[in-house]
């Protein structure tokens, strides 16, 4: 009987080791360890043994069973791993096949530039104001020291809604300076982006409607040095650290002293090229110290308070930021354009 058991053990271990799939292994288990299996059949003969032999054979039989069960378990693990490898191999994909289309919309490039500017100023404690585009000439001109007779008030330059030239499409965001001074508590730190309108025919650099962002600070002891420092900070954030700027005198009716701010040409680095018309600098914005007369008209004492203000064209900023060559693209809204940003 012992020989019988040893023979079963040997044959069974061989059979187990030879299985390729789980089902084969299960069949081997049934063949040897099942109710009608070979080992079971041998054990059924135990009754015929003498009482002395019975425990000895019993022990041998249990050892054989344990060996087989262990071998089956080990082989099962081997087969499971093999099956997983096969499955993963079968599931291998061509990863270069394009992904499923998820269409996400795009922000207009001009608003991308505007949002950057807004975030910079909000971070410096500025409030963002919104105001009317159909505006009183009084706020757009008179209150900004551009009195009767100023050329920009001409009907050839500005759109009007009444014969008395009283209501107009604002030609600049600067009336928001007046609205801020009239309604807000001092100190004031605001920016006011929005649409403005001038009587320019459409071409590569002009549009009758465009956008500006106005900025103004009014407080005690505000200096032109503050204006320079703040605008330099903004430009560095917009165009990168170390961006060179310069300030040069200019004229606006509502600031004195007035200036324009240039940034060094990104194309040529200041040497002079067609982009900067050989100057090495590109005009970015107009600014200055709020004119004392403008403060007075708003009921603010220029002896106690001073302020600075600036206005910049957004289209130009966006065009420079994204190297857009033609202003008309901004308002054409071709999706092939919009989806580049």
């Amino acid at each position: 009987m012992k020989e019988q058991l040893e023979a079963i053990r040997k044959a069974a271990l061989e059979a187990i080791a030879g299985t390729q799939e789980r089902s084969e292994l299960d069949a081997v288990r049934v063949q040897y360890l099942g109710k009608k299996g070979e080992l079971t059949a041998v054990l059924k003969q135990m009754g015929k043994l003498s009482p002395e032999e019975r425990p000895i054979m019993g022990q041998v039989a249990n050892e054989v069973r344990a060996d087989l069960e262990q071998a089956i378990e080990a082989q099962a693990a081997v087969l499971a791993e093999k099956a997983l490898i096969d499955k993963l191999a079968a599931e291998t994909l061509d990863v270069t096949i394009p992904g499923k289309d998820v269409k996400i919309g795009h922000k207009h490039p001009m608003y991308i530039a505007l949002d950057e500017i807004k975030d910079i100023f909000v971070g410096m404690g500025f409030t963002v104001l919104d105001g009317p585009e159909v505006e009183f000439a009084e706020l757009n001109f008179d209150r900004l020291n551009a009195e009767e007779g100023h050329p920009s008030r001409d009907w050839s330059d500005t759109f009007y809604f009444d014969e008395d030239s009283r209501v107009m499409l604002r030609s600049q965001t600067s009336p928001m300076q007046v609205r801020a001074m009239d309604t807000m508590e001092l100190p004031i730190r605001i920016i006011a982006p929005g649409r403005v309108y001038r009587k320019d025919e459409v071409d590569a650099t002009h549009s009758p409607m465009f956008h500006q962002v106005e900025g103004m600070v009014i407080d005690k002891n505000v200096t032109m040095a503050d204006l320079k420092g703040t605008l330099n900070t903004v430009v560095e954030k917009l165009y990168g650290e170390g961006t060179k700027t310069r300030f040069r005198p200019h004229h606006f009716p509502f600031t004195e002293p007035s200036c324009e701010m240039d940034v060094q040409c990104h194309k040529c680095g200041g040497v002079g090229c067609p982009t900067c018309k050989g100057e090495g600098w590109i005009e970015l914005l107009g600014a200055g110290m709020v004119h004392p007369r403008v403060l007075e008209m708003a009921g603010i004492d220029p002896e106690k308070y001073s302020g600075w203000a600036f206005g910049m064209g957004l289209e130009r900023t966006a065009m420079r930021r994204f190297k857009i060559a033609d202003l008309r693209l901004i308002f054409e809204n071709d999706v092939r354009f919009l989806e580049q940003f």
Partner: protein
Amino acid sequence: MNLSRKWLNEFVTVDVNDKEFAEAMTLSGSKVEGTADMGAEISNIVVGKIVALERHPDSDHMWICQLDIGEAEPVQIVTGAWNIHVGDFVPVAKHKSTLPGGKKIEKGKLRGVVSNGMLCGLSELGLDERDFPYAVITPAAILGDYKPLDPEKPSIPADIQPGHKIYGPVVAAKVNAVENAGVNLWKVSLCNGSGAVEVVTPCQKLHEGDMVALNTKAGSICTLADLHAQQAEFPHCITDGIFILHEEDMVLGADIKPIINADDHVVEFEITPNRPDCLSIIGLAREAAATFGSELRLHEPVVKGGAEGNLIELLDVETPDPDLCPRYTARMVRNVKIAPSPKWMRERLRSMGVRPINNIVDITNYVMLEYGQPMHAFDYRYIKGGKIIVRRAAEGEEVTTLDGNVRKLNHDHLVIADETRAVGLAGIMGGLNSEIVEDTVDVVFESANFNGTCIRKGALALGMRTEASAKFEKGLDILNTLPAVERACELVEMLGAGEVVDGIIDILNYVPNPTVLTLEPEKINALLGTDVSADEMVRILKSVGFQVEGDQVTVPSWRGDVLRMADLAEEVARFYGYNNIPCTLVSGETTQGGYSESQKLEQGLGSVCRTCGHDEIITYSFISPTYYDKIRWAEDDARRASFKILNPLGEDTSIMRTTVLPSMLEILTRNYNYRNKTAKLYEIGRIYLPGNGDGLANEAKMLSIGAYGSEVDFFSMKGVIEAILGEIRAENVRFEAVSDNPSYHPGRCAKVLVDGQEIGVFGQIHPLVCKNYDVDAEFYCAELSFEALMSVRGEDPVYQPLPKFPAVTRDIAVVCDKAVTVGALSDCIRRGAKGLLKDVALFDIYTGTGIPEGKKSVAFNLTLRADDRSLTAQEADEDVKNILDLLSSELNAVLR
């Protein structure tokens, strides 16, 4: 404003290159737009002298010249021009030279003969006869050049011989010798067949051996006109030719540039409207002197006068509208000899972009450029009654201006008139009836100051902005009229153009009142954020013409823009250097910046739209009134009442939109026409509604959404709207069918309601609207009120515990009339449930086999759950039964 640097150097020595000049001037406030080297394109062109001349052996029209250009050996050049003679000085373009327009000259061969360059004509040097009047060429008709129009019938025989008659007193004659007899004069010896004759002629194209037509009676050599011949008959009888130089002290081999003023450099300035004083050479010279720390050399005009009579007796001036003519200054010149002005004056005018005309007109232009004071010259004989009246025009009065146009005037125009009629438009343009002409003898120079606003309005109304009016409208220095007229008279005497009459008419309708300010250095430094010393401030102010005594600053008369401390601060800052002002950050009380709720909503809405695949667009706020027709609004639709621009660029941009729909449709159409397969767009834009009370518009913001393409339909658009409403946590959302919106498909349009408040409308655009846009596609749009969206925003979220017990789901399919809406069914389902229903989801709508005609089967997936226990199947079934009962009784929808 153009500036000739040569002219500038008369007043201030600035010895830097154009780039440095431009940079420094720009940084001190005179913005340079560009610089131009007048001779940039000219190189290697020198003065040469013709030392020998022979006819080309293989050409009937070319000459071989030997030129002395100051080198060891003469240079040989072949030319096709005939107006050259031995001894002439000419511009020689040497081998490897360049001409204006980028033309390059190199040596070569002409019909086998070596030519080492080119002789230049006026036009090749970028010049014309106005620059060098003496270079006008008068060509003779040379009989050898004759080409009969009809070869069968020549009017001059090819074998004509000296002495043969051509017509009347005109006979053929042969040139024996040509000798120069002065500028453009030639002594020519001729053989007329019977003997030798000598004539003096201005014709420059004659050479020994030429056969010419000699008028024996007049003793002249015939031109084309004399022979009544056509140009085609004498192909080389043209006014073109080489530029023969008649200049003093010419050096052979010297650069041509100084002779033709190509050594000047012109700087173009952008002058801001507050600085009309800089619209002059002297004004810019003052700025340049202050910028470079150089001395400003001004010149006091000196007039000898002494002509017969006295101006006071000859001329009377009246200014009945003194406020429009604060000052009128005049002087008079007699025995004028109209002639071209001298070369130096013509060159300066040309450099500044002004065309030379004649000495008197050129003087007025010269003084305007130099002093910035517009001048006008009248012909005295046309001033009736010897009286000039500066008055308002009569209503409907007419005057013909110098440009030949008849101008109809009204009471707002200011005219210069005599006793009978207007002779000019004050400050804008002179009149044709008193123009300076060839035979003008007596001239009145007007140097006046007119009211800027009056001139500006007048020029604008007539659509004729001139250089003079552009200056006057900015407000000119009232003290400048006298020096300017003196300068004009000085120039008249200098040029020998006439005799100046003693006496000056100078009418002053103003009280001189210079602005005097107190210099407050600490306030200036406080405004600028600088630490400039008081001495430095005084130095700067003095350098630009301010007088400073103690702390009192007297503003010069030409600086009407300087009125207070801030203006002085700008003067200080300009020359201290804007870029020397330090950079500091805003100090003082801190402020809380940030975005308002409405700005945050705007950002949020944009973000949802983009997440849904929509691109942001920007459209014009103004539209054409016809766009309301395109979107099929009724003629009497109240929404057509729009803000109307009285002076629009065109009809398409003439009214402020009261709807965003046409703007979106225009952009969708454009993309469709560009063959973009899909476009999904949005804009948060304004509409401009009248009736705000204060005269301004109610500028309401709208969220405008539009789309077309294969994936786009009514429900995709509805999905976007639901996403938006979800994002703002709107509750009690309802969609109601709209069949009467003229812009939308009557069966595919809905309005959006939140808590009963209408938020907007969306749907498929009416096919007839699409047809109006010539589009054969389905467009979908939505128009949502930003204000309404703002008001229906839900509360901030509060955490709800996650369910602890499992849900039971049941699918039901009911059959009902087709007209019953899914909205009605699901509403009914919700009401039928007894508190366990958590969600209803539509999953199928079916018509066809098995469903009776006129009916449909609608299937829902119901989710039921209790928060405190696991539901039993029995509980769920009871709820479902209730639901089905209500569906059946209310909507006649029965379980399928």
